């Protein structure tokens, strides 16, 4: 082999070595955000992402993780599934030890699968489907939020216990898996509540121009139900609530966390008897003063108050992952996953978290109960369902 060829090969090899992922860099730990920075999902990803960045800042200021600073790299999924996979690979190329993916399962999964393929830990910012984790991605994937089913189960058990609700009505918006998840949790809980029964049920679609027919069915019940389990989300939820109340139905309306926050209340002035579960209060009345402190920090950083509880899972995500890294003393994915799976009721600012080798999501969780009265939201209670929803049941849905 001629010398110039050898040199050429040598240059090529060293170039290859230089282009290898930066994971060889021992000076810092890298968190990669493969989330939507443009398009439809951006408005849903950004709040939780901002919260995650706040937690990263706190850790860095306190001396870092394993003595190293956490660095953030990001790639835009452009709210597109194909771009999502590319964004996942891009942050992995930049050496991400943790890949943070979009809030929604469908939009986050491509990047999470890319991370899974590379054997890295991935976290959904706030997906609430059981698929966001082992079931839908693989053994290194987690979600920072609480399952939608827990929200439905929480509302059912709370209303039964605290409001003596016995006759429930179930109104499901068939638009998303999230909506279905809330009602699945409600369906699981209802037979466990003695004497509680379903007096009627109906479905609608989020973008139905009118739900007059559904309202007629509620109105024609011999007596108004004690509570209406409304499994829906924005934007159709506002329209549904407005039409239900305009028709003179006064029964309490139970909903999932999708309706957390007060930004939509101006659409239904003087709304009363609307109850949602929240992981923390954005209304400034959280029983934990540290949450209110966090809200202030969030405002200082982003310029606005948290708009809904979906800010909080971003903070929880970095919190639990960093704890697992500390305990594992490495960012190696398998070791971190093993530490995460040891967490049982691990306290966080927004309720305890438990991960097992079966489920990387919460099938039980503490919720604040927020009721809207005369258009004003207020935390009135706290509730944790009496037993966890079985993984088999969740997976069968």
């Amino acid at each position: 082999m001629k010398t110039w060829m050898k040199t050429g090969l040598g240059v090529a090899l060293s170039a290859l070595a230089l282009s290898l992922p930066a994971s060889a860099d021992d000076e810092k730990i890298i968190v990669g955000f493969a989330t939507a920075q443009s398009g439809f999902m951006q408005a849903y990803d950004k709040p939780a992402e901002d919260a995650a960045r706040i937690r990263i800042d706190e850790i860095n200021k306190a001396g870092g993780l394993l003595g190293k600073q956490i660095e953030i790299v990001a790639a835009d999924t452009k709210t597109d599934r194909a771009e999502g996979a590319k964004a996942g690979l891009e942050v992995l190329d930049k050496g991400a030890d943790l890949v943070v993916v979009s809030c929604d399962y469908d939009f986050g999964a491509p990047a999470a699968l890319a991370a899974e393929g590379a054997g890295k830990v991935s976290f959904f910012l706030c997906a609430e489907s059981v698929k966001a984790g082992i079931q839908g991605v693989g053994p290194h994937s987690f979600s920072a939020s609480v399952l939608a089913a827990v929200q439905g189960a929480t509302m059912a058990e709370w209303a039964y216990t605290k409001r003596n609700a016995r006759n429930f009505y179930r109104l499901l918006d068939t638009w998303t898996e999230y909506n279905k998840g809330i009602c699945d949790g409600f369906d699981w809980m209802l037979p466990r509540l003695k004497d509680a029964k379903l007096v009627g049920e109906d479905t609608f679609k989020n973008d139905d121009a009118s739900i007059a027919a559904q309202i007629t069915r509620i109105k024609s019940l011999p007596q108004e139900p004690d509570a209406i389990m409304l499994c829906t989300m924005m934007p159709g939820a506002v329209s549904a609530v407005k039409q239900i109340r305009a028709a003179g139905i006064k029964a309490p309306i139970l909903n999932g966390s999708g309706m957390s926050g007060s930004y939509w209340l101006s659409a239904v002035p003087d709304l009363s008897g609307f109850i949602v579960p929240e992981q923390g209060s954005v209304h400034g009345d959280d029983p934990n003063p540290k949450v209110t402190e966090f809200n202030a920090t969030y405002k200082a950083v982003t310029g606005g108050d948290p708009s809904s509880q979906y800010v909080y899972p971003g903070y929880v995500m970095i919190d639990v992952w960093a704890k697992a890294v500390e305990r594992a003393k490495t960012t190696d994915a398998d070791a971190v996953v093993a530490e995460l799976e040891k967490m049982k009721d691990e306290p966080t600012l927004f309720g305890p978290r438990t991960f097992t080798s079966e489920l990387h999501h919460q099938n039980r969780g503490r919720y604040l109960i927020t009721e809207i009265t005369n258009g004003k939201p207020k935390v009135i209670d706290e509730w944790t369902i009496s037993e966890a929803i079985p993984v088999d049941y969740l997976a069968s849905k």
Partner: protein
Amino acid sequence: MTALLQVFFDALSLGSLYALGALGIALIFGVMRLVNFAHGDYIAFCVFAMLWPSIDAAAIVFLGNLPAWVLIPVILVLGAGISVLSEILVFRRFRNANPATMMIASFALGFVIKYFLLMLYSSRPKSIDLWSAVSLPLEIFGARIPLLQVITIAVTLVILLGLVLFLKHTRYGLEMRAAAENFTMARMLGIRANTVIMMAFALSGMLAAAVGLILATQSGTADIQMGANLMLVAFVATVVGGLGSLPGAVFAGFLIGGLSSLMQAYLPPDARPFRDAFVYGAVIFMLIWRPNGLFTQKSAKQRV
């Protein structure tokens, strides 16, 4: 009896919105053979026009604070404006293109409007409270119907009547119909075709604005996708009604709304999530039975 009347009212409630949407599409189709898929985005545009552009979660109401007697004409003019503007900037350039090309152009225009709104307002739905009082229901013979729907039905019928009279009995109406029949010939005979077509676009835009106001009042929400579903149903209604026929579009709008309400009321719970499959199944049968729609325009038939 009351129960039946209630089902009838529910059907009217949904149908009247569809009918109004279908009318806006049928009008443009009748004049220039264009299925304007941007119509749904005009609706969203008119609703967002009431808010101040901001990407915050909470909406900043701007024009929406005006009293009704100012707000309604302002929004109608805005609707007419965006519709006329899209004719001048886009559709005029496709006047001699085939209808499929125009349809694709209308899709593209719709995307542009949607992403423009996304840029200004973000994808989060915004809340707006518009005339809550008219959402309250009226009792008629024991059955209940929201006042808003009574208004919608009345508005639909009045607009339909007005349009038919306009098209059949005024000079501009005659010109519009002539332009629809044969654009080149009409121009040769001295019809100011651009004026006529612009007028049709203005009317169609106002109809979109009217639908926007009604939807915003009923749902309290502004969402960039809000016109999409209505647009789809309205398009199907214009096809079922017979492309280009205004009474046909209105009738079919009520028919689809009615069918949808009836299915919602009488299907067993397990089948209810598939309501739309049944509705569109019925539409397919209707089109097999009458491929040109229920009210066929003479001019719409192929002349061999």
